[in-house]
């Protein structure tokens, strides 16, 4: 309530100030007509009306009747203007009259087309405007909005007089309403004063979003990445973009469910471990060969390898046996084998050791010649050191002269 009273009082003061200003201007005006234009003689009635109404207005203002004061001032202003007009004509006529001594009043010192008598600024060229600025230079108006700079709150930005010369900006976004496409919503200049919107809520504002109604990453201008197989894995990340798959397999399927996606699975329809590239591991079967048996530790041969007496050349009757050994090694590529050569104890030990080494190497070479990788084969001669049977009988010595294939790695 107090605030309201204060506001009313302030408004009253402001209104009173305006009235006093009008009264002051009119009094000057009347004084000018009376003293300079022989107003009482040349325009008696309008001058009297103007004077009387100014007096009445003063009284009404003093009594606090602003409305009545304004009515009197309105009448006074019209009458004063009329008095000026009538007295000017009369004064000029009087100037021409020979009997009357009057100072020349048609002089126009500043040459602005307004005689010095009327000109409130007789030394400065100006324009015709109401007293007391008639003939004065027009007020500066930098922004050309019709509101002089001296009362323009925004002298460099055009704005209506109703807003004290400032542009109207209802939403306060710094963009004047006449340039604001959304004058009641704060916005940004890029959107001509409209607010930033993100219809699909993907974090990419609509004005930058090529797909404003469909969420999508900023990297793709707000549009979703394409996903031809519609498996939820975008094509750019999908190793199988045309086949629906699973996320953990980069969009590829795993038909046999062995954890290896079909694209990497050599047996996509049969489960298998990674070491077998998704194929089932081979059965630990041992192919049956007539002369060879693969056991856990050895490749057992059912015949002896025959060599020339006291020499290391393999006799042809052992070729089939060794061919089968080579075949086993080819079929089981993981096997690494030590080829051992053994002798009986006939003869010197050194000779037998050397001979057994040469025979082992001879077998190794044969196997290499039959497509077995030499890196898988190790030849070693043991001489008579590892007998299987007693060397006292011919039968026992025959058993001790032998070649064995020990599996080192499988």
């Amino acid at each position: 309530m107090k605030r309201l009273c204060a506001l009313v009082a302030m408004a009253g003061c402001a209104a009173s100030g305006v009235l006093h200003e009008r009264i002051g201007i009119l009094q000057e005006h009347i004084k000018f007509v009376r003293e300079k234009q022989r107003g009482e003689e040349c325009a008696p009635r309008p001058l009297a009306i103007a004077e009387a109404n100014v007096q009445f207005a003063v009284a009404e203002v003093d009594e606090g009747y602003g409305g009545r004061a304004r009515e009197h001032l309105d009448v006074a202003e019209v009458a004063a203007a009329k008095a000026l007009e009538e007295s000017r004509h009369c004064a000029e006529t009087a100037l021409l009259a020979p009997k009357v001594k009057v100072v020349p009043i048609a002089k126009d010192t500043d040459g602005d087309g307004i005689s010095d008598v009327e000109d409130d600024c007789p030394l400065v060229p100006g324009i015709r405007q109401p007293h007391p600025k008639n003939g004065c230079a027009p007020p500066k108006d930098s922004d050309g909005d019709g509101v002089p700079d001296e009362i323009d709150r925004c002298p460099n930005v055009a704005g209506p007089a109703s807003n004290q010369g400032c542009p109207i900006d209802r939403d306060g976004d710094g963009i004047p309403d006449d340039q604001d496409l959304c004058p009641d919503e704060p916005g940004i200049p890029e959107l001509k004063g409209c607010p930033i919107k993100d219809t699909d809520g993907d974090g990419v504002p609509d004005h930058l979003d090529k797909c404003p109604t469909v969420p999508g990453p900023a990297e793709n201008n707000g549009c979703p990445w394409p996903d031809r197989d519609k498996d939820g894995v975008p094509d750019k990340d999908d190793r199988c973009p045309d086949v629906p798959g699973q996320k953990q397999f980069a969009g590829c399927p795993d038909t046999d469910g062995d954890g290896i996606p079909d694209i990497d699975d050599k047996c996509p329809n049969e489960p298998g471990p990674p070491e077998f590239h998704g194929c089932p591991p081979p059965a630990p079967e041992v192919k049956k060969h007539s002369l060879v048996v693969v056991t856990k530790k050895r490749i057992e041969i059912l015949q002896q390898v025959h060599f020339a007496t006291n020499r290391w050349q393999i006799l042809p009757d052992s070729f089939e046996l060794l061919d089968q050994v080579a075949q086993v090694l080819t079929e089981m590529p993981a096997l690494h084998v030590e080829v051992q050569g053994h002798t009986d104890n006939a003869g010197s030990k050194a000779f037998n050791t050397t001979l057994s080494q040469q025979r082992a190497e001879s077998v190794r070479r044969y196997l290499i010649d039959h497509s077995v990788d030499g890196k898988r084969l190790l030849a070693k001669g043991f001489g008579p050191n590892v007998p299987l049977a007693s060397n006292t009988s011919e039968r026992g010595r025959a058993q001790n002269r032998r070649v064995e294939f020990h599996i080192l790695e499988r």
Partner: protein
Amino acid sequence: MRPFAALLLLSLSLVASACGPVQSSAVISDAEAAVEKARTAEAPKYALYNFTLAELLLHKAREEAGYADFETAVKLAEKAIENAELASQKTARAIHERGPGTPPAGSPTPVEPQ
């Protein structure tokens, strides 16, 4: 004694309150007479300025009396009388100097007051 005193006070206050209107209407009547006298003397032709002022002041005096502002009404009426009398004097002097029917130089054609 008490009722008498009360009655006296009441009478005095009534007289006092009625004094304003009575005085103002008397002065306004005087002003009307002064204005009418000036008009008859052809003041609108020879002293239009003062005559117009007198008329306007009289009009305003009546208005203020209508608002019951009798003090202001009296002042205005008195000013109206001053101007009416001044107009009459100026008119008489002009007629004496220039002769009747000769309006002052440069004076526009008088019009009827509004």
